[in-house]
């Protein structure tokens, strides 16, 4: 690597400027997850230690019950399928009663003692994990990749979610972030994030439709781009529709074949080796599916238990016929979104394709027909969501030249309602309302002296409460004794910029406070999440401290190396004796604490030395650079032997 003084200096100082509050953008996908950040004026994906941008959303436990994430976990799907899991996103924010269909097609192993309404728990070996915990393991991997890249801790993130995710699914994603040790500054809708990355490139006004068909979810969003404002007009989708469903169709055929032709009942879960064989079939059909996006036919050749082989050829025509019902399920949401936006297809200026499954030619043809327009494919459909998340992270962090004037105005995908007499939903915030959005409801008492009022909050479009998603039950408590109908309790429902509901209450007549007790229908409690942060891995506490120390030492080494360099530079000669003395003292202090285990002491010493060397750093730069880096400290102005990404020692220590 070229260690040119100026170039590296600038990139590194840019990277370091915001070291304290660097915010990353994360695409937590059903199949693949990515982390990105804004490097200078453009977003880039941060690769993992294997050099790959995509981290497969696969989690496994090794024989020592240590979690393995991403590419290395994939082989466990076939070798130890009972200790591995994929597509966990499909279970986020859902109860056991709404995943019965899912269980027919996915090898999720649920804990045996689950009750309806309880947060799901998935078995990996003999341990159980909730979906947010498994997602947290993926997030932690991405966090580490970023930390290795920056050689600095990363604690703040923007995470993307499917636009059509409901409140419970969003909350579960936020919980996952917290469990992973991330402060989730914002949840951004995936298609909207994609439009940000796209808009950054184009800087155009007009109406854009984003069609996002990934591994497990489908979203359609229609946006108005207007002088940097990205205003979502309508969104729709299906949180359980994607490449997985195509894979499952192909797997089902193969399983029928192997039963019919070879007499092998691979669906029988009690037989050893079957789960692994099904995974091998899954791998093969995915490979074939991907091949069929560029070839007229593909071959399946799979070794099965007992030495038998399964051979089959699929033509693109057969494939397209097979998947038609799946991809047709995207049509309804698209038409609804157009209708809600009050637009005709010809009024859409551009259509952007997002998600790996939009590489399928038949999907492209369908989009072209729906919107009567050739869709855009210039951005990598796997990466564009993460890049957009990085753009949003940059906006939240105060923006830069590239994101100046950019603002995202998103909507809530589902209507919010209250159950009223007769089990009917009374909608109080309609779908596609710009968020934050709020609605105020007034409640009163039915009988004299009534102290409680129960409120049932729902999400969805259906008339009847039982057909909508139950979000929470509230108990309005401690209403002062009054005659029936006298109390006037104002309850304010507010959907925040993450699409998550907040509630507050006020009793207006008595002036007394009203209290609300919230009973979420799904999801983890605060206490549960707290608990998971600590035991998300066995020696979390120790591990965490260890990492802090390592990170602090790494940074100390960087600044000491920079100082050595500085001493040899002509700038050193321009310092006064007194300044030099002070620096030497601080250097000594840092070297001393660096050997110890107290990361806070190391950080303090780094900070001191950093401050003390500001002038040296400035002197070290030639005039042009010194203007650019005015006010920067030694640490930021460092160059030369500092850590390069990925950091050489971080890897061994972090794993």
């Amino acid at each position, binding site marked *: 690597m070229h260690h040119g003084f100026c170039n590296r200096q600038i990139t590194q100082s840019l990277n370091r400027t915001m070291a304290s509050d660097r915010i990353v953008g994360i695409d937590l996908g059903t199949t693949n997850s990515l982390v990105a950040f804004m490097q200078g004026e453009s977003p880039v994906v941060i690769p993992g230690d294997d050099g790959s941008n995509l981290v497969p959303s696969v989690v496994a436990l090794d024989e020592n019950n240590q979690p393995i994430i991403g590419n290395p976990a994939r082989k466990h799907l076939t070798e130890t399928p009972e200790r591995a899991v994929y597509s966990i996103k499909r279970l986020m924010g859902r109860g056991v009663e709404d995943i019965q269909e899912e269980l027919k097609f996915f090898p999720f192993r649920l804990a045996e003692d689950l009750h309806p309404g309880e947060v799901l728990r998935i078995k990996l070996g003999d341990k159980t994990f909730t979906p947010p915990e498994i997602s947290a393991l993926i997030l932690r991997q991405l966090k580490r990749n970023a930390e290795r890249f920056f050689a600095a801790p990363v604690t703040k993130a923007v995470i993307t979610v499917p636009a059509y995710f409901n409140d419970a699914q969003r909350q579960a994603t936020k919980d996952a972030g917290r469990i992973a040790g991330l402060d989730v500054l914002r949840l951004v809708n995936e298609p909207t994030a994609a439009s940000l990355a796209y808009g950054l490139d184009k800087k155009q006004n007009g109406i854009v439709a984003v069609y996002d068909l990934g591994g497990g979810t489908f979203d359609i969003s229609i946006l108005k781009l*207007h002088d940097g404002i990205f205003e979502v007009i309508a969104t729709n989708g299906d949180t359980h529709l994607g490449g997985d469903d195509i894979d499952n169709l192909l797997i089902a055929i193969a399983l029928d074949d192997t039963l019919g032709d070879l007499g092998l009942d691979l669906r029988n879960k009690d037989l050893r080796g079957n789960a692994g064989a099904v995974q091998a079939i899954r791998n093969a059909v995915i490979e074939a599916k991907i091949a069929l996006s560029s070839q007229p036919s593909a071959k399946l050749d799979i070794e099965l238990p007992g030495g038998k082989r399964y051979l089959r050829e699929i033509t693109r025509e057969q494939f397209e016929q097979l998947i038609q019902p799946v991809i047709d399920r995207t049509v309804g949401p698209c038409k609804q979104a157009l209708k809600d936006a009050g637009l005709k297809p010809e009024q859409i200026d551009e259509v952007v394709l997002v998600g790996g499954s939009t590489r399928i030619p038949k999907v492209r043809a369908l989009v072209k027909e729906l919107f009567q327009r050739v869709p855009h494919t210039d951005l990598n459909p796997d990466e564009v969501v993460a890049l957009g998340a990085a753009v949003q992270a940059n906006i939240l962090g105060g923006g830069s030249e590239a994101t100046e004037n950019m603002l995202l105005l998103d909507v809530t995908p589902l209507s919010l309602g209250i159950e009223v*007499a007769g089990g009917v939903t009374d909608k109080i915030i309609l779908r596609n309302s710009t968020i*934050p959005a709020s609605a105020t409801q007034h409640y009163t008492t039915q009988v004299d002296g009534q102290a409680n009022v129960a409120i049932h909050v729902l999400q969805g479009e259906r008339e009847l409460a039982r057909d909508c998603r139950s979000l929470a039950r509230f108990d309005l408590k401690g209403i002062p004794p009054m005659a029936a109908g006298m109390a006037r309790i104002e309850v304010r429902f507010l959907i925040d910029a993450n699409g998550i509901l907040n509630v507050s209450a006020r009793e207006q007549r008595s002036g007394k406070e009203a209290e609300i007790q919230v009973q979420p229908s799904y999801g983890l409690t605060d206490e549960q999440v707290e608990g998971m942060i600590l035991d998300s891995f066995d020696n979390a506490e120790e591990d965490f401290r260890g990492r802090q120390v390592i990170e602090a030492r790494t940074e100390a080494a960087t600044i000491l190396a920079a100082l050595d360099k500085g001493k040899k530079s002509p700038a050193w000669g321009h310092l006064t004796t007194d300044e030099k003395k002070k620096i030497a003292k601080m250097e000594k202090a840092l070297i001393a604490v660096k050997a110890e285990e107290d990361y806070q002491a190391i950080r303090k010493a780094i900070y001191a030395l950093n401050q003390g060397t500001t002038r040296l750093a400035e002197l070290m730069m030639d005039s042009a650079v010194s203007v650019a880096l005015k006010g920067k400290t030694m640490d930021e102005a460092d160059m030369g032997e500092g850590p390069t990404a990925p950091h050489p020692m971080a890897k061994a220590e972090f794993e």
Partner: protein
Amino acid sequence: MTNSSLTTITAKPVPEETQSCWSCGTMRAVHFCQACGKVQPPSPVDYFTFFGLPRKLNLDLAALEKDFYELSRKLHPDLNARAGSREQEWSLQQSSLLNDAHRTLKDPIKRTQYLLQLEGVELEEQSKTATEQARSTGQIKKQIVPPDLLEEVFELNMQLEELRMHKKMGEDDPALIEEIGRQKLALDGKQESLLRELEYDWKMWDGMIQREHNGQPVSEEERKQERDKMVDLLNRRNYIRNLVRDVDEALEN
């Protein structure tokens, strides 16, 4: 969702209304400070006031949108993400108020309903009371059929009933469907012309407000008259909208 099995949310007091910016002390607008740009604690203002508009019904929609974007650039939580937690909370409150106000004012029907509500007409309460009554007495909710629609509505309801019967028997009646489709078109046309009528009522209302603004007294009676015209119009429109919904449902099922 507030994420706890039994979280207790306590009611918060309304922030005190102040005239000057909490941060730099200069006089401030309702939502943000003209001098230092900081978001201000929300004050309980109506949607018209929030946008600095008089309570008139004819609105310059392009100007409203422009103001909406401009205020979004000041109030949105994304642009206040680095501010203190108090300011972040205000930004959330203010920008939800902004969005609620914009959503209401940009839509002609919602805007009219909102103004009537500000004028003390309890539109929603009316229909809610009717619904409750219907439920408790077990009767079908009585809706006053606008007299000029009586005949058409009667016929249409008969046809819808017939269509439902046919569907139940699994029969198809293209002629009937076509006829109902025609009726639906006529209803759509009615809605359109009601909207134009409403626009006329707006003009009268706005003229009255302007006179008042110019210092001429407006009698309570006149005010009530103008209000009632609009209430009546909205009721008729609601009635037709429900009818159209019934037709759509019958045709779909």
